[in-house]
C-alpha cells in the first residue's frame, strides 16, 4: 500500500478535487493543512521547491497540482 500525503489548504478547489479523487479510489492518505501547520508548509516547500497547493507525495514521488493521470500512473490505478 503506497504511503500518500496531501499538502493542501481548505479553500483550494484543486485540493478538494485531489482528495475527492483519492477517496473515490479507496486510497487512504494523510492530509496536511499547510495554512495552519507551518512545519508541514516548510516540508512541502522543501519537497516540491514551490508554494502552490496541492502537493501530493506518493512514496516520495512529488506531484504538484491535481495531475490525475500522473497520480493514476504512480498509484498503478
Amino acid at each position: 500500500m503506497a504511503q500518500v500525503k496531501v499538502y493542501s489548504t481548505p479553500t483550494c478547489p484543486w485540493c478538494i478535487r485531489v482528495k475527492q479523487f483519492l477517496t473515490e479510489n479507496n486510497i487512504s492518505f494523510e492530509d496536511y493543512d499547510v495554512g495552519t501547520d507551518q512545519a508541514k508548509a516548510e516540508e512541502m516547500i522543501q519537497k516540491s521547491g514551490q508554494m502552490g497547493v496541492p502537493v501530493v507525495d506518493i512514496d516520495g514521488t512529488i506531484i504538484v497540482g491535481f495531475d490525475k493521470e500522473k497520480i493514476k500512473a504512480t498509484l498503478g490505478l
Partner: protein
Amino acid sequence: MYDLIIVGAGPAGITAAVYAARKRMQLLVISKDIGGQAAWSGDIENYTGYQFISGPELAAKFEEHMRQYNIALKENESVNGIRKTQNVITVTTEKGSYECRSLIIASGKRTRELNVPGEKEYKNKGLTYCATCDGPLFADKDVAVIGGGNSALDAALQLVNIASKVYMVNNVSVLGGDAIMREKLEVNLKVTIFNDSRVKAILGDKMVKALRINTAQGEKELAVQGVFVEVGLIPNSEFAKDLDKNKLGEIRINPQNETNIPGTNSKMLKKKIIKIGNKGIEAIAIKLLTKTFVLLRGSKGYIMCGYLNLKVAQKFQDAAAKIVGVASIEDALKAQIHSCTPQAKKIGIKPGQPVKDALRIIA
C-alpha cells in the same frame, strides 16, 4: 451524436447543463475544471439568495445540482478546436473528438499575466494568481496584491485576515471595484495602497523577496514574500478559431446569444452598442445572418426595428413597440411606430408616433 455539447462547467455551463438535462436532451459537458471562476473566489456576497457564501462552497453547490441529473461529463479535458460541417459540430480535445447538433460555449476567462521580469521564475514560488488557494500559506508574511478591480479587492480582503501587511499596487489613480469592498480595505491598518503605480519586476532568490514598483514619487522596492496578481481576465476562446471575436478575444454574439455560425451559442454577452443622442438610450445594431436590425433600448423598454422574419420577431414579444422596414440606426430614428404592446400603450407609446417621441418615453 449529442443534441448539445457545453464547453465549460462554471456557473454558466452548469446552469445550461441543468436546463438541458431537464429537457431530456442528450448532452455532454466538457471542462477543464468544475466551478470556474466561482471556485476561485473568496467571499461571495452578491449572489442572490445567499447573503454570504464562499466561492468553493457555491461551486460545490453548483456541482451537486448538476450531479442530480445523469449528465455525461468529461472533466480535466480542454477543448482545442471546434468545426462545423453541414449540421454536425465536431468538438476536439486533447483526448478525443465529440459530435453534436448544437454547442454552448461557456468557457469563461482566465487570469491575465503581468508580463514583467521575474513573473515566470517566481510563479508558485511566492507569486500566485489565486488568493483563495494559496493565501493561507502567507500567514504573518508581507504580501502585495497587484490590481485595483473587484478581484484584487477580494484577494486583499482575504489576505488581511492572514498576512501581516498587504500592499495594493494599482495602476490608476483610484481603486475600482465595489465601494463596499473598497471601504473595508481603506480603513484597514494592515493595508497600504499605491495608486498610479506599476510593477517593474519581481525579485528574489529561490522564492520571492521583493517587488519593484514605479510610483508617482519614483521607484520603490517593497519587501514582500508573496505577490498576488489580479490584473484582469482574458477569455478562453482560442479554440473557437472560426467564430467572430472582438479585439479582446471575446466571441461576438447577438441578443439570442448566437455566434456568427448558427448552432454555436456563447454565454459571453457582447453586442455592438452605439450610444445615441437621447440620454439613456442605446442603439444596438445586430447582424443576424445576412440581415441587420436595430434595437433601441431605454430603461423602460425597447423598440425593435428592422426586417425580421416571424421566427425572429417572436423572440421579441416583450418589445415595447415595433417598427418595420428599417435597416439602420439612422432609418430607425426617422421612422414611425408600427405596432405596440399593451404595456407600451400604457406608458404613452402609440402606432404612428415618431420614434424620436417614443424614445423620450422609454429613456
